[in-house]
Each structure stands twice: as structure tokens, then as C-alpha cells.
């Protein structure tokens, strides 16, 4: 635990920023006073936000620890101001309680609030059910698909039916594999101009509709990860109006990029859910405004340099985001939706989806804080990133805000 006085800071308390003040952080708690001799840092008017919660973490350990490790991921979380996250291991499905215990043990060493999604099928193969009851009893936050389509609808039905005993939510990245075919990008004007194989919107909406119908039939709560198009939001609104318990998130990059970026032919824009049209991007923003979208996700997906330093179509899809998420999204998000909704979408709402206690700032309470200079631009270079990866479309670009430091779990990290 580190004690620290942060001077000239504007903490976000009860839905708004307070006047510039001093925060005494003692043994991980926002205290009225600090012991004599406590180090003071001058935040120079920075915002003090409740630390964030990241939906969509995958640190690749244990099977692909040649790419990235849990330690790297935790370092990225601390640099980016995340006190917790929802972890889904796509390379190594958490499909039994032993695997869950092993990864929980690794996670516990770092002291952050990380919840885990179990796999509803063994190895995400959609052939055999995982031991969902044991996984639930051992503490999974819900059940996921490992971002792989389950084309066997009967298996999906049985998995959701069996899993309904646990009361846990099912998390899906909705993309019909057969309609996706070999597509990598949004099927639209830019793909047709470039001659690239596209993924039509119906690949998403058909998958969503199928799952919503199953959720309605079985009365199972479902969540859609990384929703990318406006039509999906309409399907979700419709299902909600009929009583289906459905939540969804949008990925941070999908709020900031659309398929016009394809003209750069930069492999960093190759991500699992394609960037769709400008109209879709605007629909996602409207979904945040209307409340149709519950949370913003980060989908931190490390990819080795040599797997990105190839042409677009041969690149491994994925982007890291923890270190750059807040500097990139804070200004556009808070300017359009207000600071309170921005904090809700980045922190409290995703934590709620994962069943983790929210991070809130209040005098006398444990404090996980991220200090943000909202008007100080950040040049994104490779040194910003933990581990050996830097696969973000922001690399080499400038972001509107920068993180000054984070105080999470009593640890101070100057960025």
C-alpha cells in the first residue's frame, strides 16, 4: 500500500466533478488527512475519475503466454486506470472448475477485481456441455462463447437450458459464421471498392435474432458483446419490450472508427467484429444516449508484432485497448453524453454486468482512481504498452487526453 497526497485535483463525486481540491490516499482509502511526510504530487487540475472496469479481457495465459501474460495485462490495467474487468479466455476455454481455480489463483496475486466467464461448451466446440453448475458454484460471472459462433442451434438451446439452472447470463459475440464466410471487413462501399471480402450486417442480426428467440423461449438472460450495427440495437429494444432480459455492449473502437478507415489498408484495423459504416457508428452512439447500450467494452486482445506486420488480410485480428481507452474516448464521450453517463458506461455499468462492486469515489471509502488530464494530448508510442505488443489503430496517433497517474488497490502508478 502506498500513501499519497494528490493536490489540485477535481474528484468525481456523486455524479459530478468537485472543485479543485486535495485528495489524501492512505492505505487505499480516500482519507481526510495523510500521515506527516506523505509524498505530494501536483495533478495540475487533472480529473480524478473512479477507476474503470474492462469488459473483454484476454491475457492469453497460460496457453499463449508467448504473446502476453497475466502480469502484462495487469500492468496494462494499472496504466490505463482499470480496477477490474471481465475476463474471457478465448485460447484456453475455462470449461471446468480446475481451470477456473488455476486462473483465479493467478489473478488473485495481483489484487484487481477480475471476474471470469466460463465456457458453456467444452473447448468452445459446441459439442459437449461444460460443467456449468460447478463453474457457477466456483464463481464464474456468466458463460461465454469465446467469440466463436455456435452454429448448432440445438446445442445452443441445450446449453442455455442447462445453464439456466445457474441463473447466470450468457455472453455472445453475435456473428453467423456461415454468413461471415471468409469476410474480414464490413460488407459495404469500402469493401466493394477495395475488393475485400465483406461480412454483411445480417451475419450479426441473424445471430442476434436466433439467440434472442432462444432467450425468450428459455427465459435465460443474455448479453451481446461488441454490437456493431444499428439493426442489432433495434432487435434488442424490441426483445426488451417483450420482456427478454438482454444487455449489450459496444467496443470502444467501434465508437471511434468506421469502415472508411479501410482505405488505409492498415492491419491494425483488422479486428474480430468489423468496423461498420458511419451510419452504424452513429447508431451505436445513439444507443449509448438512449440507454439501449448498457456499457462500453474494451476487448483487450494482444497480437504479436509479427502477426500484425503483414498485409491486412493476413493479419491476426485484434486490438489492445486498456492503455489507450480512456485517453481516446473520454472527450468525445463526456462531451456528447455528459460526465456522469460516461463514468457509468466505462465503470459502473460494466462492473454490474460482471457482478463486481462498482468503483465510487467518496471520502472515507476505498478509492480506485484514475487521474486524467482531459486537455493534454497523448502521443501513442510503443513504450505506452505493457508486454511486447502494441497492436492498436492508435499507434503513432495523438489522443485528446492523457492519464497522469492511477491509484488502484493502494498502488500508485505514474504514467
Amino acid at each position, binding site marked *: 500500500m502506498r500513501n499519497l497526497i494528490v493536490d489540485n485535483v477535481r474528484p468525481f463525486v456523486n455524479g459530478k466533478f468537485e472543485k479543485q481540491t486535495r485528495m489524501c490516499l492512505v492505505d487505499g482509502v480516500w482519507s481526510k488527512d495523510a500521515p506527516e511526510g506523505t509524498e505530494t504530487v501536483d495533478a495540475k487540475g487533472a480529473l480524478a475519475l473512479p477507476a474503470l472496469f474492462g469488459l473483454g479481457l484476454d491475457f492469453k495465459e497460460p496457453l499463449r503466454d508467448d504473446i502476453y501474460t497475466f502480469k502484462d495485462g495487469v500492468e496494462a490495467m494499472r496504466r490505463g486506470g482499470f480496477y477490474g474487468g471481465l475476463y474471457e479466455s478465448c485460447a484456453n476455454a475455462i470449461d471446468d472448475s480446475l481451470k477456473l481455480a488455476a486462473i483465479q489463483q493467478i489473478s488473485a496475486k495481483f489484487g484487481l477485481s477480475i471476474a471470469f466467464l466460463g465456457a458453456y461448451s467444452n473447448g468452445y466446440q459446441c459439442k459437449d456441455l461444460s460443467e456449468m453448475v460447478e463453474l457457477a458454484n466456483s464463481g464464474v460471472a456468466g458463460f461465454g462463447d469465446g467469440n466463436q459462433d455456435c452454429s448448432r442451434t440445438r446445442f445452443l438451446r441445450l446449453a442455455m437450458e442447462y445453464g439456466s439452472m445457474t441463473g447466470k447470463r450468457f455472453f455472445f459475440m453475435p456473428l453467423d459464421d456461415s454468413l461471415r464466410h471468409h469476410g474480414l471487413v464490413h*460488407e*459495404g462501399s469500402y469493401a*466493394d471498392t*477495395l*475488393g*475485400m471480402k465483406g461480412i454483411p450486417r445480417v451475419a450479426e442480426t441473424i445471430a442476434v435474432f436466433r439467440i434472442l428467440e432462444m432467450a425468450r423461449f428459455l427465459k435465460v438472460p443474455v448479453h451481446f458483446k461488441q454490437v456493431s450495427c444499428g439493426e442489432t440495437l433495434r432487435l434488442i429494444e424490441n426483445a426488451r419490450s417483450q420482456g427478454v432480459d438482454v444487455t449489450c455492449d459496444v467496443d470502444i473502437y467501434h465508437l471511434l472508427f468506421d469502415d472508411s478507415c479501410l482505405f488505409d489498408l492498415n492491419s491494425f484495423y483488422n479486428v474480430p467484429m468489423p468496423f461498420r459504416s458511419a451510419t452504424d457508428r452513429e447508431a451505436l452512439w445513439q444507443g449509448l444516449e438512449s440507454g439501449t447500450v448498457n456499457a462500453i467494452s474494451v476487448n483487450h486482445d494482444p497480437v504479436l508484432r509479427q502477426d500484425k*506486420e503483414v*498485409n*491486412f*488480410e493476413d493479419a491476426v485480428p485484434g486490438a489492445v485497448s486498456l492503455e489507450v481507452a480512456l485517453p481516446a474516448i473520454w472527450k468525445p464521450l463526456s462531451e456528447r453524453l455528459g460526465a456522469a453517463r460516461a463514468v457509468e458506461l466505462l465503470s459502473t455499468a460494466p462492473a454490474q454486468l460482471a457482478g463486481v462492486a462498482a468503483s465510487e469515489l467518496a471520502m472515507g471509502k476505498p478509492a480506485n482512481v484514475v487521474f486524467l488530464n482531459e486537455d493534454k494530448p497523448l502521443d501513442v508510442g510503443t513504450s505506452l504498452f505493457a508486454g511486447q505488443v502494441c497492436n492498436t489503430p492508435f499507434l503513432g496517433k495523438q489522443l485528446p487526453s492523457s492519464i497522469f497517474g492511477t491509484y488502484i488497490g493502494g498502488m500508485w502508478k505514474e504514467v
Partner: protein
Amino acid sequence: MSALEIKHLFGLRGVSKNDIRLILDNAKQFREILERPVKKVPSLRGMTVVNLFFENSTRTRTSFELAEKRLSADTVNFTSSNSSVKKGETLVDTLRNIEAMKIDIVVVRHKGTGVPKFLADNSNAIIVNAGDGAHEHPTQALLDMLTIEEKLGTLEGKNVTIVGDIRHSRVARSNLWGMTTMGAHVTLCGPSTLVPRNTDLMDKITLESDVKKAVQNADAVIALRLQKERMDDALLPSMREYRNTFGITHDVLEYAKDNVLIMHPGPINRGVELDSEIADGDNSVILNQVTNGVAVRMAVLYLLAGGRANA
């Protein structure tokens, strides 16, 4: 000699009318040289060109190689079947190793869209696209344009109809960008599963599903090769139905102008996209295209290299 605005040739989308004009005018001069008894000029003497072909190619690679030799360049052929790529070397490592051997120009063909740009971003060599995925095949389009200009004098105001698998065709894309820049109107015609669905970024084009209507006002008709894989992928029911619906046959040409030019990028599926009597008929300029291919590639290499010597 004027200089090109472009430093590499990735494609024709966004290439200026002046640059295309310059390439075509130079190609016409090289075309004359190719008719001489001694067909060689010293323009690229001392320069090394690598033909980096990751996809099979006979005519394009041969055409480039001839163009390079006619310009007196040293040439090296590098194909994926005999390359270190098969041993797992990355594209960028392959390029850097080749570049370390002090090459000047890389002519590249690859299945991936944007590979030429990727190579240019990672090297100092001049990059020429010899076909990248379904994206662009700019020298094919330039030779098509040269052929039309040679026969009709200009592209301005001409109607060019491209028939076939537009969606998967880099030739069609390069042609539509280049020809519309030069003032032609392009009509795209093909089965609904093989034409682009989203054409709002494609100015001055018309989509037509009836081949007889598509050829009516055409000054030139380009038939594209139909890949057999399209049937496997359920994009078409059969070659037979394709031929009967979209093949350029004598019956279809009844609806076209008498002097319409018949073109094809080769190799032809005779009796599928083009009937033999049409491919070998009076209106066919297919072999002129082949000859012009060498001239156009000479012009592109010469101009991109900076025109260090007079042709």
C-alpha cells in the same frame, strides 16, 4: 519528360488524369519501339527489377519480364513456389532480404489486398502492383485503355461495358477507376452474386443485369474470365447457365454496334464468357491487348524509375 505524381503504382483509384495520360502517351512511344527490329532501349540499364509473384501468373509475369528486358534492366524472378515464404518467412522479412540485395523496383502479385502498399510502407524500393487480391491490377487496365485509345482515338465520352465476375475482379476495378478518370462511362454487367452490392463510391458507372442491354451502346466490351471456383461456392448454378445468360455470343452482339471492340484480359474460357467465333473475330482486339501490355509496363517502369534515359 514530365514526371509522374505517383511514386509507386498501387492501383488506378485516385491516380490523376495527367498521370494516366503520361503513362499512355509514353506507352504509345514504346509501342512504336516494339515494332522496330531492335526492340531494346537502355532506359533502365544498371537498375534491378524483382518480379515478386506470390500467385501463379504466366502472361503478366512474362509481359513484365519482357518489358524489363526491353528497358535493359537486370531482372530477377521470385515465386512463392520456390521461395523462403514456404519456409515460414514473413512478407516483410522476404522484402527486406530482397531489398538488402540492392534492388530498385519490385513488381508484386499477391492474393492480399493492399500488399503493394504494405511493401512500399516497409521499403525504399519502387513498387508496382501486378495484381493484389480482388483489389487492383492497374497495368492490365492501362493496357486496356491503351488498346481502346489506339482503336478509337480517345476514351473521352466512350462507353465501356465490363461483363462477368465484377465482384472478384481486380481487372474490373482498375478499369472502372482508370476509364472513368479518362472520361469514359463504364457499365458493369454480371449475375447479382458477382457484381458489387455497394457502388456509391463508384462514380459514373451503371449496373445492368441484362447483357443485351449492357452492350447496346458500348464502344468496347470487356469479358472477364469466369473462375470455376464460383460454382463450388454456390455463386452460380452452372457454366451453362452463365454462358446462356452472360456469355458474349453472336446473338448478344446483334444488339451491339457493328464496330464494338471485344476485349478479354485472358486466359479465355472459350464457350463460357466468350464464344470462339467472337474471340477470333474481326472485332476482337485481344492480341493487341497482349502486345500493348508490354508497352504499358515499359512506360510504367520507365516513368516510375524517373526516366533516367531517353527511350
